[in-house]
């Protein structure tokens, strides 16, 4: 990119005979000098990334072939046995089903609400900045805090049931967390509450890129506010929405913190809220079956990767960034 800039410098050079020589020297030395710069600048990031992200993932793939309790070097090679066990385990299939449900419900519930809120906040409202901050509050507080709070609020003797009873709706009081028919919806509610702020941030950021002339022109032509949003803002927001969908799917597949904090180590499977990640931690690490846990990790990773690459290939490709296939 820079090498082509040299002619530009020649224009200025008319005032001195020496000037071209550094340019030429730089041009000749660009091979190794540039390579050194690239290595110096990107080396640290690549090293730390390979060491703490890529290497552990490869290690997980390796350990997944062993029956291993975590002591010393794994020696009991069992081939694909762990994977067979995973696929045969009803608890895993349930967890997988829950993940699928959470993926779909997150998109269906959070997408429209997030879009609606972003449209709302994109207007000139009095107190808008205050409203913005408040909507982001759940997104910013820690999963541990959100989980602790909702656990206390929703337990059988908690405040939600207390409020229902005090306003005469005691009949609606439920065991929100332990009832297996209800728990997944409770989880969906909490997830929406927690992560809607992120969708709103992304959508708002995308809306800043939509030229105001477009919406103003539509308004000139007599389009109503909602027509303008539906015909102009939302379609132009397509790339942002598609990125959010991607991030939402990945997040839902890998959901761990909130479930593990609210439903604990063992209750999540009986309440019907277990996920692949909580299964991984309870069956792998907590049960001391490190080899098995790593095999679960590989399955989780493969599912995420297949979905991510498929989405990238068929949906995100239209958006020029090409985030996952080496941006141009």
């Amino acid at each position, binding site marked *: 990119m820079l090498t082509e800039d040299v002619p530009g410098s020649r224009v200025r050079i008319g005032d001195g005979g020496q000037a071209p020589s550094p340019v030429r020297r730089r041009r000749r030395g660009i091979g190794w000098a540039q390579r050194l710069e690239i290595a110096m600048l990107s080396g640290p990031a690549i090293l730390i990334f390979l060491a703490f992200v890529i*290497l*552990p993932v490869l290690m997980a793939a390796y350990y997944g072939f062993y029956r291993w309790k975590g002591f010393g070097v794994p020696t009991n090679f069992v081939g694909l046995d762990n994977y067979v066990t995973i696929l045969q385990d009803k608890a895993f299939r349930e967890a997988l089903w829950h993940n699928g449900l959470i993926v779909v419900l997150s998109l269906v519930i959070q997408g429209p609400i997030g879009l609606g809120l972003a449209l709302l906040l994109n207007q000139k409202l009095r107190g808008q900045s205050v409203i913005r901050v408040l909507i982001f509050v759940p997104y910013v507080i820690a*999963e541990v805090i959100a989980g*602790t709070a909702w656990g206390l609020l929703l337990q059988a003797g908690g405040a939600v049931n207390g409020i229902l009873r005090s306003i005469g709706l005691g009949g609606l009081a439920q065991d929100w967390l332990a009832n297996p028919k209800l728990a997944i919806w409770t989880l969906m509610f909490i997830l929406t509450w927690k992560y809607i702020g992120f969708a709103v941030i992304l959508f708002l*950021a995308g809306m800043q890129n939509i030229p105001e002339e477009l919406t103003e022109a539509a308004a000139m032509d007599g389009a109503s506010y909602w027509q303008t949003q539906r015909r102009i803002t939302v379609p132009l927001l397509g790339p942002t929405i598609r990125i959010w969908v991607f991030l939402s799917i990945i997040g839902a597949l890998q959901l761990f913190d909130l479930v593990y904090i609210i439903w604990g180590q063992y209750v999540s499977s009986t309440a019907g809220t277990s996920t692949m990640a909580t299964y991984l931690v309870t069956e792998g690490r907590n049960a001391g079956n490190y080899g098995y846990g790593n095999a679960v990790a590989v399955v989780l990773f493969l599912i995420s990767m297949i979905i991510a690459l498929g989405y990238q290939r068929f949906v995100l490709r239209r958006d020029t960034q090409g985030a996952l296939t080496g941006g141009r």
Partner: protein
Amino acid sequence: MAGTRSSRPGGGHGRGGGDPIVYAVALVLIGVMLGPVLYIIIGGFRTNSQITTDPAGLPHPWESGNYTGVLTSDAFWRQVGNSAIVAGATTAGVATLGVMASYVLARYRFRGRGAMYALFAAGLMFPATVAITPLYILVKNLGLVNTLPGVILPQIAFALPTTVIILVPFLQAIPKDIEEAAAIDRCSRLGFFWRMVLPLSVPGLITTGILAFVNSWNSYLLPLFLLNDQDTFTLPLGVQAFASEYSVDTAKVLAFTSLSMIPALVFFSLFQRRIVGGLTGAVKG
């Protein structure tokens, strides 16, 4: 500005802040969003007997004992310190390494550039969950279990993909003219990086820095596996330990919880405008 807006014919519906329905919706939403947070904060001012007899009531009388109890405990402040160190170091590390690598990706043409970008981008799909057991083993072999650097290094690594993906478009957007002008002034490419790129990338750096800070401050899984010693606990682990240790003392748990969310909230409120602004370069509208 306001004048031109209101003078637009027919286009002002819903703008200008007049629509009561919009405000009603906004109010209900804020109630739902803030309800649990207010419950924690207000509940911390109650006593356990108040909470047992009426779980949804207001404090009567207001008790500040829970809060002062937490604020005078060593454990709380130690955890605040640990969290601040971990989040601060992670943010500094991610910002430094991230901007350097992004600069290479945005401004150099070389073979392997696409592969390098793909490497970082693929990292979006590698959550710490997948690698948590091997990470533990790795960190143990480095002798860093139960130390803060043992959490900081993996957190930097896992935060790099988001950072790079947000920063690269930001750095690409710096006009070529500026770079040419710098080259004419015989500014080396590294000089250009120091004098031009860093100052111009500040908005993007702030966005990624805030995201990294808040994520690290709230991080649960990595510390859960890598920190087993109470002295090294960060706040999320502290909240959980406190909640199980004082599981019968709900009021105290509420006080502890509400105090531990203050820093991230303050930090985010101060910079939220910057976050939306910084993401604008990364997402395409």
